[in-house]
Structures are given as structure tokens and as C-alpha cells.
């Protein structure tokens, strides 16, 4: 287990270098004129271009630029945006909000999704099963921003139950509806995954043995069936946590949540390399760590899986 974890952690290094370089390359590659649109409805003055070129090492070859950037990144300097704000300040302001939102979304999708899956998986065909089937279909068919805009309009503007926007230091309660919107799609997938997995395992040999041994039904379902059925669900959840930690551009936009997704989006739009690469570097690490944790969790869930 220890060696496996170490190996996985070491793998982070090339992945980190590769992704940051590709992102760095792509952001500068977006346009051959990095100053287009930086000065309103006119071309930037020669002295502005000269000054900014020097400040961001733009006249160096790409690889040299990247290495200079990486060097300061490794000493903890994320650089500055064009508006003179430290990128590290931006991340420090935005990331707690994103983490909160991601956790709320994951909690909602896990609790509701698994509960619905277990309910339908155990009961089999019937009214509840059809209800879940139809409602998950609707959730999967609806794009997230539609769900978000509808809920904001109905609950926020028409009924006045929630604020249309989330304040800057949101409480968990204020993030409940955005979390629901964000998690709705995955919630539907989790319900279906859990159901299918349970139905499959229902007829498995080890379940029949457990029933034959005379174990109480609670134990058969709770320990033997559910624990095995949740492996694909945990894989999905782990991936989802990683993805949600990367921010949610649409949901953040609809509810004006000042998270990391909107920050990256704005950075890309304005071709602000320091912001984009800095955040992406961080997100890559978060995503890889989340996946590592999921892989380690398998061993906990399924004793047949061993690392080393």
C-alpha cells in the first residue's frame, strides 16, 4: 500500500509538468496578438506593448518563458494578472467557495442518488422504479444551466425563497440550491448506477450464500450487497469530486458564485496566462489526488483488491 501510494505520487510530477506546459502553450497559442482587446477599441501603444512584453517575458522563446514561469511558480510566486492583482490572492479568495460548493454538491448527489438507487434496486419494477427512471431521464436530458436558470427564476425571483445570487462568504444553506443544480446530473447517474449494480449482485453467489446462512436481511443488503455494489459508484463519485473541485463555470455564472471556474473562464477570455496556468496547475494536483484516494478506497470496499 505504501509503495503503491508513493509510486502514484511520483507519477504526479510528469503529469504536472506536461499539463502546465500544454496549458501554457495553448493560452499563448490562442492568438498571435496577445495585446488585442487589451486597450479597448484601438490598438495598444508601442510603449505599452514594449513594457508588457518585457514584464511577461514575451520576447523569449516559448520554452524559456515557460521555464521562467515554472521557476517562480515553484518558489510559490503565482505571478500577477494584467490588472496587477496577485494570482495567489485570487485563488485564495475563490478556492474555499469552490470547495464548499463541490462538497455540498457531492453530499447531495451521494445521499439522494444512492438512496434512490437502493430503493429502486431492492424493490424492482413498480411505481417507484418508474418514477425514478423518468425523473433521472429528465435530469440527464436537461442541461445544467437550464435547471439553474429555472430554479433561480422560480425560487429566487418569483417566490423569493432564496437569493438569486450567492453572497461572497456563502453559508452551506445558501449553497444548497446551487449544489443541487450542480449535482443534479451526477445524482441521476448515481441513482442508475447503484440500481443496476444492486440488481446484478442480487443474483450473485455470495448473496445467495449469505441468505442461505440465515443472515438477517439488513446484513445481507447492508454489508454484502451494498458494499460490493458501490464500487462503480465510488469510482464515479471520486471522478466527480475531482471534476467539481475544478469549478463549475455555468452554475457559478448563474448564481454569481465567485469560485474558481469563473476565474479560469475569465482568465482564458482575457488571455491571462498567469491566472489560467496557475489555477490549472493547482487543479491538476487536486484531480490526481482525488483519484488516488478513490483507488485506495477500493481496497477498503472490496477485500479482493490488493495493492503491492
Amino acid at each position, binding site marked *: 500500500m505504501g509503495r503503491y501510494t508513493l509510486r502514484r505520487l511520483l507519477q504526479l510530477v510528469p503529469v504536472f509538468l506536461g499539463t502546465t506546459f500544454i496549458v501554457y502553450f495553448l493560452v499563448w497559442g490562442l492568438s498571435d*496578438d496577445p495585446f488585442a482587446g487589451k*486597450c479597448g477599441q484601438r490598438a495598444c501603444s508601442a510603449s505599452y506593448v514594449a513594457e508588457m512584453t518585457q514584464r511577461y517575458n514575451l520576447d523569449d522563446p516559448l520554452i524559456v518563458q515557460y521555464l521562467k514561469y515554472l521557476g517562480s511558480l515553484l518558489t510559490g510566486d503565482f505571478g500577477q494578472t494584467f490588472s496587477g492583482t496577485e494570482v495567489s490572492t485570487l485563488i485564495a479568495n475563490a478556492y474555499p467557495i469552490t470547495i464548499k460548493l463541490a462538497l455540498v454538491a457531492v453530499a447531495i448527489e451521494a445521499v439522494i442518488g444512492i438512496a434512490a438507487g437502493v430503493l429502486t434496486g431492492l424493490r424492482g419494477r413498480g411505481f417507484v422504479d418508474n418514477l425514478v427512471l423518468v425523473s433521472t431521464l429528465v435530469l440527464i436530458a436537461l442541461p445544467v444551466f437550464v435547471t439553474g436558470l429555472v430554479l433561480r427564476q422560480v425560487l429566487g*425571483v418569483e417566490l423569493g425563497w432564496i437569493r438569486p*445570487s450567492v453572497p461572497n462568504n456563502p453559508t452551506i*444553506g445558501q449553497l444548497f440550491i446551487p449544489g443541487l443544480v450542480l449535482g443534479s446530473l451526477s445524482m441521476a447517474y448515481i441513482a442508475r448506477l447503484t440500481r443496476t449494480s444492486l440488481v446484478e449482485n442480487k443474483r450473485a453467489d455470495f448473496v445467495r450464500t449469505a441468505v442461505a446462512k440465515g443472515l438477517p436481511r439488513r446484513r445481507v443488503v447492508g454489508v454484502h450487497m451494498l458494499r460490493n455494489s458501490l464500487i462503480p459508484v465510488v469510482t464515479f463519485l471520486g471522478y466527480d469530486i475531482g471534476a467539481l473541485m475544478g469549478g463549475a463555470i455555468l452554475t457559478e455564472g448563474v448564481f454569481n458564485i465567485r469560485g474558481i471556474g469563473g476565474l479560469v473562464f475569465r482568465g482564458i477570455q482575457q488571455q491571462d496566462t498567469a491566472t489560467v496556468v496557475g489555477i490549472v496547475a493547482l487543479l491538476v494536483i487536486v484531480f490526481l489526488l482525488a483519484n488516488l484516494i478513490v483507488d485506495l478506497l477500493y481496497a477498503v470496499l472490496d477485500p479482493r483488491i490488493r495493492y503491492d
Partner: protein
Amino acid sequence: MSLRRLVTLVAGVLAVALVATACGGGGGDDQNASTISSEWGEPENPLIPGNTTEQNGGDVIDALFAGLVKYDVNTGRPSNEVADSITTTDNKTFTIRIKPGWTFHDGTPVTAQSFVDSWNWTASGPNAAQAQSFMEKIDGYDEVSTEAPTAPTMRGLRVVDPQTFTVTLKAPFTIFPLTLGYSAYYPMPQAFFQNRQAWEDRPIGNGEFRFDSRTPNQSLTLVRNDQYAGQDKAQVQRIQFRVYSELQTAYDDVISGNLDHVRAIPSAALGGGRWRQDLGAGAHQKEGLVTDSLGFPLYDPRFANPLVRQAISMAIDRRTIVDQIFGGVYTPASGYATAAAQGFVPGQCGELCTYNPDRARQLLAQAGGFQGPLTLTANSDGGHDPYMQAVANSIRQTLGIDARYTPVPSFQEQRRLANSQGFTGLFRNGWQGDYPDIETFLTQLYRTGASSNDYGYSNPAVDAALSAADQAPTVQAADQGYAAAERLVLADMPNIPLWSRPVIYGNSSRVASAEHNPLNRQVTSTYALNPQG
């Protein structure tokens, strides 16, 4: 622990957390009662007057600083603010006396030197200031504006005594005093020049509000300056600028009472006049200085014939598009300037900007038709898609040519095409006047080689007419000269005027007044809350 027990535990903790936070809301409302919150966006550059030319930074700068001249909140007419008098005998050298008693927020006095130092800083090349070109008319600008300046300061600026300085321009520019209300001309204190980084973190100005705090990408708060020397003192204790990524969310927040002021109205709410119902007395509209137009790439030989350009202009049904897409709120253009600009003459464009399908077809036939598809380009991140589509349809149906809307993804891409002369068809231009005079719609756009002349337009007669107007003996004569130049440009039609956008904004029911001036800048001294009953 069995998994089910774990799930139960997680759910339980979550439920408790939800209940706890639901009860916890509602604190800290004391400050709220004396704060007006406004929709805002992150500024593109550090908050320095000479380095700010866009709206977000400009709104904060205008609250933090006071200039030599201010513009009336309703009419946009200029009047002296920090300036006591601005006099000249030849419209080339101006003597500016400033009023005594003005101080910066750090207590130091506002002197003639403050203005001269600030203007020199903005003009200096290595400072890479966005508003650098606003100093280009001052004598000595060329020596300091390059990457390696050959002079430390502009020789056209001279301090006479602590309350007086003179400005010598390269050539007479009669309306110069009127332009001095623009934020690039605001004074900065010595603290800026001593420690720029510290000053940027906490800007120090001379305006009716002081800097209080800022969380980048979230909000910025200003607090009333009780030592303010001007007449228009702040009425409200605090203003909080809140960053929104979508205008619609801010608009919904104003309607549901979570935000006090929104600086624009989303186009979805304009249609059918819904915003007036939503906002009631909080809906505001006044004449502004913003225009939309469609430029021709004159470097493309297909557009060389003025008849083709005129035909396309006359094929656009402006009235119908304004009514259907903008709820009749915008004004179809009859020239390049807007009614809020001093020197505006109505109907300058005449029949060339009037929808006339028969005449349009006739002109196009006379010019020998048009070859190939006609593309119309705009950036799709600016909300231009609906009307660009409508304009393309109008041209196609009227002239029977293959006119299509071909959006580019971002403003950056639009500017890249403009800077590299890469357009192959009509391109959208938005223009926001910098000061309320007709000149702001002409010189920067149509003079040969001007900074925003993206068409590649050059007409010696126009250049001569503009120069003559610059040097006219009186402001009135200058404005008449500019209007004459405008007629010359319109006959050439390098740029099709579409419509002017009024200044529209919305206030919540808590707000007694929160006004914009015709330049669409927030006038924070007008901000006031309703007395609480």
C-alpha cells in the same frame, strides 16, 4: 462501521449543518442600512486614473477623484470643479487656476504640481499607461511618450505657483477645457510617486469617497470622505461595488432586493418593456454617448465604391430592428454623434441612413452589383448576436445578396482582426464618447491614421475640416466645424451608423437616487437611500 451507518451519519451531520446555517443568517445588518451596493466587474488595469479607460475601473476612479471639470449629471454640460478658472487667449496656451482648500484623502493639499506630475506620469512611455494618448495634444508629448524618453517631462506643462499652471498644446484645440473632465486628467498625490505599490493597494484620491477595502474578484468598498471640499458631497455612508459575472443575475438581485443598483439592463428584459414593470420607479433612461455602427474594411477592393457602402446603409431597417430587439429603447442613428453631445446636429445623415429598399437596390445596380458573400462580423461574447443577425437579414432581403452573420468568439479576436486589417466584410464597432462633445465621435475614428480608424479611411478634406474645427476661435464655431466634417465623412460612408444606446440603469426600492451621467459613469454623489420608515 457499516456503510449504512456511515451514510446515516453523513446525512445527519449535513442536516444539522443546514439547520445551523439557516439560523445563523441575518447578522451584520447595521452597515447594510447605510450602504448602497452596485453591480460591478473586475477592472482590467490597476486603479490609476491615467491607466484606466474602461468602465469598471472608471466608475471607482470617478468616485475616488475629482477633476478640474465635471459634467452635469443630466445634461453632461461641463462646469469647473477643482478648477477656479481656465483661461486662454489663443486656444493653444491655457492658464488653469485651481481652487484653494482641496485636499487628498491623506490630508496633503491638491496643488498645480499634483496635476502636472500626474499628467507627466501618464504620458511617459515606460509607464505603459492606458490613457497615454489623452496627453498627445500637449507640447512635448512626443519626447516623453516613447519607450526610451528623451525628456523627463512635457515642456508644455509649467507650474506658475502652487495654485496655477499653464498648458501649452502643440496646436490650438478650442474645446480642450471641455475634455478635462475625463478621468485621465485627475490629480494624484505625492504618495503615488513615492510608493506606487502601496498606493495601488489603497488608492488615495481627492473625491467624495475614500477607499475602504477590496477583495479581488468579489467586491470593493468605498466610504464617505467627510473632508471633501467640493459642492457635491456624498450622501450615503458607503458604496459597495460587487463583482457579477452575469448581468441577468445582478438584475434579478435588484428586483428581489439583494442589490441596490445595476448599471445596465439585460436585453431579455428590454424586450416588451418588461424592465419598466419590474423596476417601476427604479427604471432610469437618459440620452448617452454610446453608438453602434458597422465599419467597412476599405482595404478590401470590393468596398472601394462609395455607392456600394451607401446602398448597404440604406438597406438596413433600423427602426424595425430597434423596436423588435431593443423594445424601442435605442434611437436609430441619423449621424455619428448622439443627442447628448454638445454640437450635435440632427439628421446629418439624411436619406443615407434611412431605410429605402428601392433606392438601395438602384444604387447597388449603379455600382455594378456586389460579388460574393457579404460577411458581418461581431464578437459573440458581447451580446451582439440578435441584432447582427437582424441586420444581416435586412441587407439580404433588401439587396438580394448573400449577407451572413459570421461571429468571432471573443472581443480579443475581433480586435486582433481589426489591428491586423484582417476583416473581409462589415465589422461591428461600438463607440463610447469620452467627453460630451461631437468631436469625440470623429477625430479618433476618421482622421487619417487615427488610433481607432479601423477602416483604413483617409480623406484629406476630412482631415483639413477637423483641423480647421480644432483651431476655430470659439467653442461654438468649433462644434459647427466638426458637424461639417461629420457630413463629409457620412457622404463617404466608411462606417454605417446603426443607432445610439441611451444610458439605462436600474435601482432597487431602497434607493432614493443613484444616477449616471450621459457619459454612463456612475455619479456617486447622487447616491442616496430612502429614509427608513
